[in-house]
């Protein structure tokens, strides 16, 4: 059986097997990272110039699904680096035992202290609901106001997507025991739950919904790339949940030196300089070029909310059960 399957697979895979002899660094990441307008293409070009290797990004769904993917592939994975987990997932990711420490000692420009031995941060931001002011003149000022309104929103699945998980923890952090009832009220505002950020944002832009769960920094994309000032992030009175996006090395990597080089590159000025205008987030280390002026126009949350990664892991299961129950009805 095994032999037969392997033989069949070999013959089928033959067409795809191209003969690249350069050493290959494989980075698993989320869909929007490798989009044409995302950081992927520029990062790939810049890193390949210095490493003399072939950097391959593999899009494997959204952030949280990345974790399931490396678990699913186990020790046999091709991935050398996983890029796109966030602080809410790090405890779970560490527990898989599939990752290995990075040995870096950087000074980060993060609003929180960061000294995790496994995960290297590369950017951060605040979750927010983004709207189009030509379609929604009076955006809600809080989660409760949104739940009471008849505004249609697209959100992401907390099981597969880091923004989805972020929203789950946002509601839980801000409302605690009341989280479940908030979700019950929000349920009728939710047009659909997408597996990843890209689908959700695309649906919002296409007019399927008035608001989409994204980041306070998303409007910067429309201002800078499109000269469009109609997209705004709604400021919520209870504060905004934070996200720190991270990357880590896989223990099973066959390119440990290249992987280290990549993490080094990631913390460097070139990569960090690309972040604000390609990944549309705050860089983990302020680049020499600083932030574009448009970032000054973005909503500044009145309060930053964040669970420690251990708390996030323990709160997640309860919050997820509440979410599933509220949205199953």
């Amino acid at each position: 059986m095994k032999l037969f399957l392997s033989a069949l697979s070999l013959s089928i895979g033959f067409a795809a097997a191209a003969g690249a002899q350069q050493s290959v660094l494989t980075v698993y990441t989320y869909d929007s990272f490798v989009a044409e307008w995302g950081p992927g293409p520029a990062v790939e070009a810049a890193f390949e110039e210095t490493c003399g290797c072939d950097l391959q990004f593999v899009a494997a769904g959204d952030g949280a699904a990345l974790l399931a993917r490396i678990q699913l592939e186990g020790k046999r994975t091709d991935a050398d680096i996983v890029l796109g987990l966030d602080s809410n997932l790090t405890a779970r990711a560490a527990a898989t035992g599939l990752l290995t420490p990075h040995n870096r000692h950087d000074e980060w420009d993060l609003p929180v202290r960061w000294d995790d031995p496994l995960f290297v941060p590369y950017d951060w931001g605040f979750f927010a609901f983004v709207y189009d002011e030509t379609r929604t003149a009076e955006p809600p000022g809080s989660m409760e106001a949104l739940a009471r309104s008849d505004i249609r929103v697209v959100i992401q699945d907390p099981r597969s997507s880091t923004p989805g998980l972020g929203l789950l923890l946002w509601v839980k952090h801000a409302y605690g025991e009341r989280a479940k009832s908030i979700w019950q009220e929000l349920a009728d505002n939710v047009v659909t739950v997408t597996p990843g950020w890209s689908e959700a944002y695309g649906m919002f832009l296409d007019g399927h919904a008035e608001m989409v769960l994204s980041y306070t920094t998303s409007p910067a994309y429309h201002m800078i790339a499109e000269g469009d000032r109609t997209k705004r992030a709604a400021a919520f009175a209870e504060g905004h949940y934070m996200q720190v996006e991270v990357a880590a090395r896989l223990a099973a990597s066959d390119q440990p030196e290249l992987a280290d080089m990549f993490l080094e590159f990631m913390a460097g000025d070139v990569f960090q300089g690309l972040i604000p205008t390609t990944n549309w987030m705050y860089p983990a280390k302020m680049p020499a070029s600083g932030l574009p002026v448009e970032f000054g126009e973005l909503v500044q949350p009145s309060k930053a909310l964040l669970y420690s990664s251990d708390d996030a892991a323990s709160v997640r299961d309860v919050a997820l059960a509440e979410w599933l129950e509220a949205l199953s009805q």
Partner: protein
Amino acid sequence: MTRVASAASLALVLFLSVGTFVAVSLRADTSLALGTSDWAAIRFTFVQAALSSAISCLLAVPVARAVARRNFPGRSLLITLLGAPFILPTIVAIVGILAVFGSTGLLGSLVRAVGIRAPEIYGLHGVVLAHVFFNLPLATRFVLQGWLAVPSERLRTAAALGFGPREVFTHIERPMLRSVLPGALVVVFLVCLSSFAVALIMGGGPRATTIELAIYQAFMFEFDVGRAARLALIQFMLGICAGIVAWRVALPTGFGAGLDRPAERWDARRPGLRLADGLVITAVSLFLLLPLGTVLIEGFGEMFRLPSSVYFAAARSLAVALASVLLMLALALPIALAVSRTSQRQALLAEGAGLLMIAASPMVVGLGLYIILFPLVDPISVALAVTALVNAGTSLPFALRAIIPAVRDAEVNFGSLADSLGLNGAARVRLLILPRTMRPLGFAMGITAALSMGDLGVIALFGSTDAPTLPLMLYRLMGAYRMEQASGAALLLVLLSILVFWTFDRGGRINSAS
């Protein structure tokens, strides 16, 4: 020789259906009670399947009646179109349905132009809509067959006795429908029971999740194999129950020939009925053609501008389809030969094996294979082979249904002659069986190839990230919201599916000995 081959085929079928099930049940996490979301998935699976089958069959009645009793230009084209869902990849239909019925699609824009907020398509109604799109044609073909199987003398007797439409309904149509509809309902229910791709894209989150989708999510989102396996147990039980019901209800085949001649009807000449039938035919044609037409129009320009990765994916899908066809033949032929020659009880066993494959859902089989393969080999590296194998298994019931009667005919009509000539073993297969079964064989190969080409099931579960098949690629393009490329890939996929079906089916006809 044939006995060994058929035993091997049966063993493989049993491995795919029962073996994977055993693997799944050993890993199932049965320590926890079913949660709210599990119950919601079970409930939703039932509700959507019941609604989809009821609506499909209900609508199929007027459509089949109109097609049965009217002759109009394009009639045979419409009948061909009604057979299309067999070879139309689910995900392509979804792309088309979204483009027409989505809130920003064709109809949504029309509705908005009038100043009404377009209703959202995601959720139960979207899932049911997509299922009706797929199964209304299927149900219509079943009912149409019932209609055209009414002997023409009976219709003439009715006319000679002066029956009006009402009497024709009570005395001819109602009894016919009573015998045809239960089978059609069961088939459609069964198809919708293991719905995955539709719920994956058109569902609206936890409130519209089928069990198959819940298995996928538990596995792909959380890598919770225990929970996925527990859901798979439930899905398998449901499939078995439905399979038993299907066994007891006479199942229509849906492939019958002779749908090309309308029945003469003297009670239906009234202008009102004529108008009603015309409206029904127009409506159903639009319902089926608009989504496909949109895919064609939106995809046409894009198809030639696709990145090369999409063409690689297409090549991979073609290879999977061909491998599926070969595996299907290796499974189906020995079983068909055994069935046509062995005792009644063994024949029943073989047909039961085919039925088992209906009950075994792709996600359950996929999950089982993952669990079995993981200690032996990297499941992802054999994902394409597994896809080919599972698709061969999935199309086995269809294939057996098409091939067994032909093999049996060949044996009944020419078996004694062959015996008297000492024509046995491989020579008998090559000189007697194959030439006499070319047509159904070609058809079965075509169906298998098309099903495999468009499948978004197992491959979604552990398809490789850098070597996807075309449907998986299409799903990822949709996920990254690259809709233009998605529509181009959708068109490419549907064209390839039609091509592989046509090639095999045509090949069977040309080489047919009769």
